[in-house]
C-alpha cells in the first residue's frame, strides 16, 4: 500500500488551516477590520489556506495514476478502503475549494458592516470545505455518514449566522430539522444495506450483491432511504422543501455556498454510490432517477416563475438545475458521456451560479432588498454588474454564447447517446423546462434593462466582490470559447468510474 501524506495533503491543509483561521480570528480582532485587512486576518488566512489546498489537488489530478483511473485508497487496504484519492474525489476537491474561495470574497463584501465572530465564520467555511472534500472521497457508508453530518452541522451554523435576524434563525432551524430527519432515514437505509451484505464498504457491497442473491424489494427500499439523505443535500424534489426558506434567510454568501459547494458534495456521493455501490446491474435504478429528475426540474422551474425574492427564485432555480444534473446521473448506466457530463455541468454551474449570487450579494447590501422589482433600472445604476448578471442568467438558462450551453449540450448528449427511450423523453422534458426557465431568468434581465429606476444613484461594489464577479464572468465565457481543457478534466476525473 502506498502510504504517502501527499495524497491527503489537501485535507490536512484544510484541517490545520481551519484552526489557523480560528486563531487569526482571536488575535486579529483588535488590529484588523473588514475595511483594512491585515496579513493575519481571518479573511486572508482562509484564502491562503484554500489556495494551499488547491495546489496539491490539481497536482494530484494531473498525476499519472489518477489519469489511468487507479484509485489510491487510504486506511483499510488497497481495494476496500474508507477514503479514495481518485479523479472523482480530486475533481470535487477543486470544486469545493474554488467555490469556497469565491464565497470568501463575497463574505468580505457582505460582512463589511457585521463585525462579530469573523474568525469563527471563516473557520467554519474552511471546515465545511473539508467536509465536502471528504464526502467526495468517501468509499464507505460510515465515512459517508460522518462527512455528510460534518457538512450539515457546519452548514446549520453558517445558515443561522445572523443571529439577530429572525429569518436567518428560521433558515437554520428549518435546515436543521429537515437535515436531521433525512439523515436519520438515510442511516436506516444504510443499516439495511449493512444487514443485507455484512459490510459498509460500498465496493464490497456491490461485490456481495453480484456474488449472491439480491432481495430486490428490500434493496429498492434501502436505496430510496439512502437517496433521501443525498436528495436532501442536492435539493431533489420532494426533499427540497427546506431550500427556499433556508436560501432566503441565510446570509447571501452562505446561500451561494449551499447552492454550489454543498450541492456538488451531494452529487459527488450520489454518483459514487450509484456507480460503484448500488450498481445498475445490482438494482436497475435508472427509472427511479428518471422520475426524480423529471419531477425535480419541472417543480423547480414552475415554482420559480412566481417568485418575487431573487434568493427564493435562485433557490428554485437551483432545484431545477439539480434536476438537469439528475438527467446525467440517470444516463450513467447507458452512456459513457454521462459522468463527464455531470462533472462538466457542476463545474460550469459553480461559476454561473456563484456569479449570480455575487451580484445578489452586493445588491442586497446596497439596496437593502432582495426583491427582483428593486433591480429596476440597474443598467444605469451598476452597468457592469447588470451586464454580468445577463451573462449568468443566459448561462443558467443554457443559452449560448455562455458556458451553460456547453454544459447542457453535454448532458443532453449523454441522454441521447444512451439510446434509451425513457431517457430521450426525459431530454425532451428537459428542453421544455429550459424554455420555461428562460422566462424567469429573463424576468431579471427585463427588470434590470427595461424598467426605469426611481432612484438612479450609482451603486459601486467593493473590490473583493468585483473580483468575484469578474472571475465568474470570465469563466462563464471561457468555458464556451475554449472548453477543451475543462472537458478533458471532466473525462479524466470520471475515468475511475468508467469500469462500472
Amino acid at each position: 500500500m502506498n502510504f504517502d501524506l501527499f495524497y491527503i495533503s489537501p485535507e490536512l491543509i484544510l484541517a490545520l488551516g481551519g484552526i489557523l483561521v480560528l486563531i487569526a480570528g482571536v488575535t486579529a480582532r483588535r488590529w484588523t477590520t473588514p475595511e483594512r485587512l491585515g496579513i493575519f486576518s481571518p479573511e486572508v488566512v482562509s484564502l491562503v489556506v484554500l489556495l494551499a489546498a488547491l495546489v496539491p489537488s490539481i497536482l494530484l489530478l494531473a498525476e499519472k495514476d489518477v489519469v489511468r483511473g487507479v484509485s489510491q485508497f487510504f486506511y483499510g487496504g488497497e481495494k476496500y478502503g474508507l477514503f479514495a484519492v481518485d479523479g472523482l474525489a480530486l475533481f470535487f476537491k477543486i470544486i469545493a475549494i474554488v467555490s469556497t474561495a469565491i464565497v470568501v470574497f463575497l463574505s468580505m463584501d457582505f460582512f463589511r458592516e457585521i463585525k462579530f465572530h469573523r474568525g469563527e465564520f471563516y473557520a467554519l467555511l474552511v471546515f465545511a470545505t473539508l467536509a465536502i472534500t471528504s464526502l467526495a472521497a468517501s468509499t464507505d457508508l460510515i465515512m459517508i455518514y460522518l462527512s455528510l453530518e460534518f457538512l450539515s452541522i457546519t452548514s446549520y451554523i453558517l445558515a443561522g449566522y445572523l443571529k439577530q435576524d429572525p429569518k436567518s434563525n428560521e433558515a437554520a432551524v428549518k435546515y436543521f430539522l429537515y437535515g436531521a430527519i433525512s439523515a436519520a432515514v438515510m442511516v436506516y437505509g444504510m443499516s439495511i444495506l449493512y444487514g443485507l451484505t455484512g459490510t459498509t464498504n460500498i465496493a464490497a457491497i456491490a461485490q456481495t450483491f453480484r456474488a449472491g442473491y439480491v432481495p430486490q424489494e428490500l434493496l429498492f427500499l434501502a436505496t430510496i432511504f439512502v437517496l433521501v439523505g443525498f436528495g436532501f443535500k442536492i435539493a431533489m424534489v420532494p426533499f427540497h422543501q427546506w431550500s427556499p426558506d433556508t436560501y432566503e434567510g441565510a446570509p447571501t454568501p452562505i446561500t451561494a455556498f449551499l447552492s454550489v459547494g454543498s450541492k456538488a458534495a451531494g452529487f459527488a456521493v450520489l454518483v459514487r454510490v450509484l456507480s460503484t455501490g448500488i450498481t445498475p446491474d445490482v438494482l436497475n435504478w435508472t427509472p427511479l432517477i428518471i422520475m426524480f429528475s423529471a419531477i425535480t426540474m419541472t417543480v423547480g422551474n414552475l415554482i420559480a416563475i412566481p417568485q418575487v425574492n431573487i434568493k427564493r427564485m435562485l433557490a428554485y432555480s437551483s432545484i431545477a438545475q439539480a434536476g438537469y444534473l439528475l438527467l446525467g446521473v440517470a444516463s450513467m448506466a447507458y452512456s459513457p458521456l454521462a459522468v463527464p457530463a455531470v462533472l462538466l455541468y457542476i463545474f460550469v454551474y459553480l461559476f454561473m451560479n456563484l456569479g449570480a449570487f455575487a451580484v445578489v450579494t452586493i445588491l442586497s447590501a446596497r439596496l437593502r432588498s432582495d426583491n427582483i422589482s428593486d433591480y429596476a433600472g440597474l443598467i444605469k445604476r451598476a452597468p457592469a454588474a447588470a451586464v454580468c448578471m445577463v451573462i449568468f442568467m443566459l448561462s443558467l438558462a443554457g443559452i449560448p454564447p455562455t458556458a451553460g450551453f456547453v454544459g447542457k449540450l453535454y448532458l443532453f448528449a449523454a441522454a441521447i447517446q444512451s439510446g434509451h427511450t425513457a431517457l430521450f423523453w426525459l431530454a425532451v422534458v428537459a428542453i421544455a423546462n429550459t424554455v420555461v426557465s428562460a422566462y424567469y431568468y429573463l424576468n431579471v434581465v427585463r427588470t434590470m434593462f427595461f424598467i426605469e429606476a426611481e432612484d438612479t444613484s450609482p451603486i459601486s461594489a467593493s473590490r473583493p466582490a468585483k473580483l468575484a464577479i469578474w472571475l465568474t464572468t470570465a469563466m462563464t465565457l471561457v468555458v464556451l470559447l475554449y472548453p477543451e481543457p475543462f472537458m478533458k478534466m471532466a473525462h479524466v476525473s470520471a475515468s475511475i468510474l468508467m469500469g462500472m
Partner: protein
Amino acid sequence: MELWILTLITFVPAAGAIAILFIPKEKDSAIKWTALLFSLPSLVLSVLLWIWYDPSKPGMQFVQKVPWIKGLDVHYFMGVDGISIPLIFLTALLTTVSLIYSWIIKERPKEYFSLFLFLETGMLGVFVALDFFLFYVFWEVSLVPMYFLIGVWGGPRREYAAIKFFLYTLVGSVAMLLAIIGVYFYTSPHTFSIPAAIEQLPFSKNLPLQSLAFWAFFLAFAIKVPMWPFHTWLPDAHVEAPTAGSVILAGILLKLGGYGFLRILLPMLPEAACKYSIYIAILALISIIYGGLVAMAQKDMKKLIAYSSVNHMGYVMLGIAAASAATAGQLTDKTMALTGAVLQMFAHGLITGALFFLVGMIYERTHNRDLDLFGGLGARIPVYGGLLSFMAFASLGLPGLAGFVSEFFVFRGAIPIYTVIAALGVIGIIINAAYLLWMLQRVLLGPLNPQWAQVTDVDAREVVSLAPLVALTIVVGIIPSFLIVILNNSLTQVVLAVTRAGGG
C-alpha cells in the same frame, strides 16, 4: 485574405460593438460614427465576396476550418456558397442602412448601437457557419440582442413582445438542439460538420427517427420563417420593435428560417423532406392566404406590413415545398421554384425592409399609424408618397421590380408540381395587391386630415437609408440574372440532393 474574409465579415461588427462600450455615453455622435464605421467593412467585403465567388465551381468556397473542441469534433468551420452570399450581402446592407436610419435614436444610444452590431455578427454568423455547434451558437446569439432592441426601444407593449419573441424562438431552437445531437450520434465518425452530415445522410435507413429529426428542425425553422400556425409572435414583435429593429426582423431574421431549410433540412434529411413536402406546401398556402387576408383587415399600418411578411414568406415556403416534392424528375421546375424562393427572400428583405422604414418615417412625423386617420398625404409630402407607392408596387409584384421576378419563378416552378395548391396560391397575389393598394389609398389619397397639415417631407438621412433599397429593387427586377447566376449551381445541388434520395 481568402482564408480570413468570412471571419472578418462576421466579427468586425462585434469588434465595433465592444469598441462602443468603451466610448463615454455622452459622446453621442462618436458612438454613431463608430457604429457606422464598423458596419462598413462587412458590407464592402460582402460585395467583394460576391465578386470573387466563382459560381461555376460546386461546393463551399472561402472555407476556413480550424479545430475548436477536439473531443466533440467541433470545428470553427465557415464557408459560403451561392445561397449564403446574397443573404450575407443583404444582412450587411440592411444593417448599415438601419444604422443610418437610427441616427435619430436619442434614448441610450450606446447600448442601442452596440447591440445592433452584436446582432449583425449573430446573423452573419448563421449564414457562414458550416458546423452545427457554431451554427447553433450564432443562431441564439442573434436572438439575444433583438430581445433587448424590442424590450428597451420598442412600443408600448414591448416587454410582452420581447419575451414572446424570445420564448417562441427558443422553443424551436432547443428542439433543433436535440435534433443536432441526434445527427451527431448517427454519423460515424460522430461529427458536427454540416457538409459531412449531408454527405452521410444520417437516419437514411431509419425513417421514423428521420421524421422526428425533421420535425424538430422544421419547428425551429418554421417558427423563424414564420409559417402559419407558428406566426403569432411576428405581429407583436414587428409592431413593437423600433423601426430599424422591424427592418432587421423582417429583412434578415425571417430569412434565417428559410436559409435553414435550404442549408440543412432539404439536403440532410431528403426522404423526410420529400415525404412531408405536401404538408409544407399546404401550410405555405395557408400562410399566403391567411397572411394576406389578415393584413387586409388591419387598421394599423405597421401591423399590415407585418402580416404581409407572413403572406410573402408563404411564397418562399411554397417554392421550398415544391422543390422537395416527391416526384421523379422535373428538375428544372424544382430548381426554378427554389430559385424563386431565394429570390423572394432577397426581394422581401429589400422591399419589406423599405416599407418598415417608410412606416417609421410617417410615425415619427405624426405619431400615428392608424390608416383611417391618414389621407391625402400624397399631395402634402409627394416624395414620401412616391417612395411608398414604389415600394408597395414592388411588394405586390409589379413587373419590372424585384417582387415580380421572385413570385414568377416560384409559381412557374410550383404549378407543374403542386398544380392545385399553387393555383390557389395565385389568389394570394390578388389579396396582396388588394391590401397594399387599399393602404396606399387610405394614406396618400382622399382629403388631407388637417391634423397633418404641417408634416414635412423626407430628409437627407431618410433618402440615404432608402436609396440603396430602391435601386436594388429595380436592378433585381430588371436584371435578375446577376442573382440567378450565383444561385443556380448551389440550388441545383440542393435539388439534386433531395431528389436523388427522395423521389427520384
